[in-house]
């Protein structure tokens, strides 16, 4: 088991939807390093015949293809591939293999182009059909193992709690159910470094330790933060910070800045995190029901942060 785990490649799933944010996600994935595999995935929700008046939308798509036009998902994925090539994560001479998987209820099905270099590194373009977008992304994590999902944030996320519970945004739904770490991208860049936050719990520290590679994003500068809700807890927060620092020291990762703050954890993390590219927090471990009745710091940060947030698991 241990051998298998060490041989297993680090894999990133980048969700592409044609927005600039999703292409920035592809750039970010390319900057992680040269060895890992990247899958660019576009999810097309299954057609609903009633919406198109009983005429299947595939008729319109076939017409587009007859005119030599590309379907939108393919155009977006190709653009994502060009972003990877521009960042040197992929070469022009890689072996190419296309596969198709039938999907019940949709004749277009799932389509995949897999590019492989001589060392076995893979870049995959996946056009996936699913019941809806979050289901498609989550199904993809069942098809293959991924260490990180990168997807763009949605403004719709910032609505009230009840609405969000019943009809969450794509990113929110993926964050809730993904089996691996998730980076929700907003104005994503790697220049300003990462702020890693911990409440000092075993659960959070273990998640950060397991994902040091993600949390530090290759060579991005790393800063750490611990927050105490009141003055009495300041010493404990400093202890949390020291514990967090020791985790990084053990892996010889340099800490740029260390912060201890007093106050509301969400407010403090957002205030310090504003100067960073990515705020890294550990998953709260709460169920959606528990989060509904008592707030989760990681979820609140995800919802309100103006910049990118990574939830590590």
């Amino acid at each position: 088991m241990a051998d298998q785990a060490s041989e297993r490649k680090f894999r990133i799933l980048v969700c592409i939807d044609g927005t600039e944010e999703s292409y920035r996600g592809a750039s970010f994935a390319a900057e992680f390093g040269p060895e890992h595999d990247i899958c660019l995935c576009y999810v097309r929700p299954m057609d609903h015949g009633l919406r198109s008046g009983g005429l299947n939308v595939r008729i319109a798509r076939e017409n587009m293809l007859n005119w030599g036009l590309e379907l939108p998902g393919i155009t977006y994925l190709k653009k994502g591939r060009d972003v990877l090539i521009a960042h040197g994560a992929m070469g022009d001479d890689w072996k190419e293999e296309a596969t198709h998987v039938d999907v019940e209820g949709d004749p277009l099905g799932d389509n995949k182009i897999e590019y492989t270099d001589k060392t076995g590194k893979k870049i995959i373009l996946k056009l996936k059909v699913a019941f809806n977008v979050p289901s498609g992304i989550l199904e993809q994590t069942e098809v293959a193992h991924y260490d990180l999902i990168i997807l763009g944030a949605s403004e719709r996320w910032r609505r009230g709690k009840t609405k969000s519970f019943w009809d969450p945004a794509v990113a929110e739904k993926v964050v809730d159910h993904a089996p691996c770490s998730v980076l929700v991208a907003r104005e994503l860049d790697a220049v300003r470094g990462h702020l890693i936050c911990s409440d000092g719990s075993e659960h959070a520290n273990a998640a950060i330790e397991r994902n040091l590679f993600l949390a530090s994003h290759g060579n991005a500068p790393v800063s750490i933060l611990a927050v105490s809700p009141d003055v009495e807890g300041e010493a404990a927060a400093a202890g949390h910070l020291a514990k967090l620092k020791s985790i990084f020291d053990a892996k010889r990762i340099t800490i740029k800045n260390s912060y201890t703050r007093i106050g509301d954890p969400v407010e403090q993390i957002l205030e310090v995190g504003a100067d960073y590219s990515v705020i890294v927090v550990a998953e709260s471990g709460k169920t959606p029901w528990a989060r509904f009745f008592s707030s989760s710091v990681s979820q609140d940060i995800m919802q309100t942060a103006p910049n990118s947030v990574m939830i590590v698991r």
Partner: protein
Amino acid sequence: MAEVTTNSGRTVRVIAITMKSIGFYVWQRRWFFIAMGVGAIMMALPPPDGLSQKGMTVLTMSVVATILFVTEPVPLPTVALLIVVGQVILLGLDSTSVATSLMNDSVLFIMGSLMLAVAVVKQKLDKRLAFFIVRMTGTKTSRICIGISAVSGILASFIGEHTVAAMMLPVGLTLITLTSDDPRQVRRLAAVILFSISYGCSIAGIGTPSGGARNAIMIGYWREFFYDPANPDTYKFLIDYVTWMAYAYPMFLLQLPFVTLILLHTFRPEHRDLSRAVVKLRAQIQEEGGMTTRGWATIVLFFLVLLGWIFGSDALGLGTIAVLGAAAFLVAGLVNWEDMNSGVNWGVVLLYAAVISLGVQMKETGAAKWVAEGFIAMLSPFGADQGIGLWVAVSALTTAVTNTMSNGAAVAVLGPLVLNLADIAGESPLLIGFITAVSSAFAYLTVVGTPACTIVYASGYLKTSDFLVVGWRMVLMSTAILLVAASVYWPLLGT
């Protein structure tokens, strides 16, 4: 680091994963369970005054079906199957009579029209259409948009908006991509061209009965609810092809110029002239050569179907002629059955059939009348229980509903209610029915509202927010024209 896992630990993990999977399934289908919960509560309550137990059951089924239409937690044909089962088990109707109620001329017409749509789209007449538009309009963006809206609209009024949207989508996209490969450079141009197609089709879909399923559904309701062979006064409720056109076609023509004005004013395209794209498009089309024999045969056959609808629908019914047309395309070898079979979403035909059948039960059990009385009582304090106030209320209700579900489903769900409303308020059922059918085309605000909007959205160039940005202007324009037609023009036709 080696990980030690005990049997009990493994069991706990398996249970946790299973619970999470069940939780995810329940969450995915949450609206199904909510709808069923609402249904169970309604069925457990005693029927309110004035409503029979059977009426309460039909009302419950309608509420549950509406929740499922809007939220779509299960494939929509499932709703049709549940309606059929519900009529037999909950209403105690005979299985054969329920099965019989599923097929009538309106359903046959919807089925035949969809088969004709596939047959026409398969003939690749879109390149000829593109050639005709650019030759007629020149190269100015505004004129091309007018041309696209007009051609899309005129065709959609006869052969259905979904057919034309599917044919015109590549024409619009080719013009966009030939202007620039970078979508960011043509963002607003794309919006204007694609909305010219979808809104051109949407406003025209009401023009003739064959423009959309909703028209056939309303014609069916008039016949089911008001026509009595023994009473000559009710013959006016047998609406034929030409009568429908007399009411609705001017509405389409009046709206047409406003579509381009609103689109150009809202999006202000980056390019005022598309000479480069038009030259390339002309070159592409000329490579295709002239009109083929298949193309001509398609036009002739469809023209014959149209003549059949105009002159023969009284004797044969609109549905029979549509089905005959589809059969003629198959006999002529212009389309094969496999294409028709895969192009038509048969589940939708079943769905319309089941909803019309439920609509008839709404009327027969008195549920529609009870809801209509409640609605009138609600409108009364605002003075909207008759006249123009009622027209505005009916139009607003239909616009709200049609923006959350397909326009065909909106008319199928609202038809029994509004026609009873007309009866109670002393308004003409024809007038209120036309207001409902026409307003069901005002689904400009969302992607799911009209087939044409759904199809152009599949291009990937439009955002859902674009529909809101331009849609409210379209709603205001269309509502104003509808009210003018209802108060000035339709009375001249004897509503």
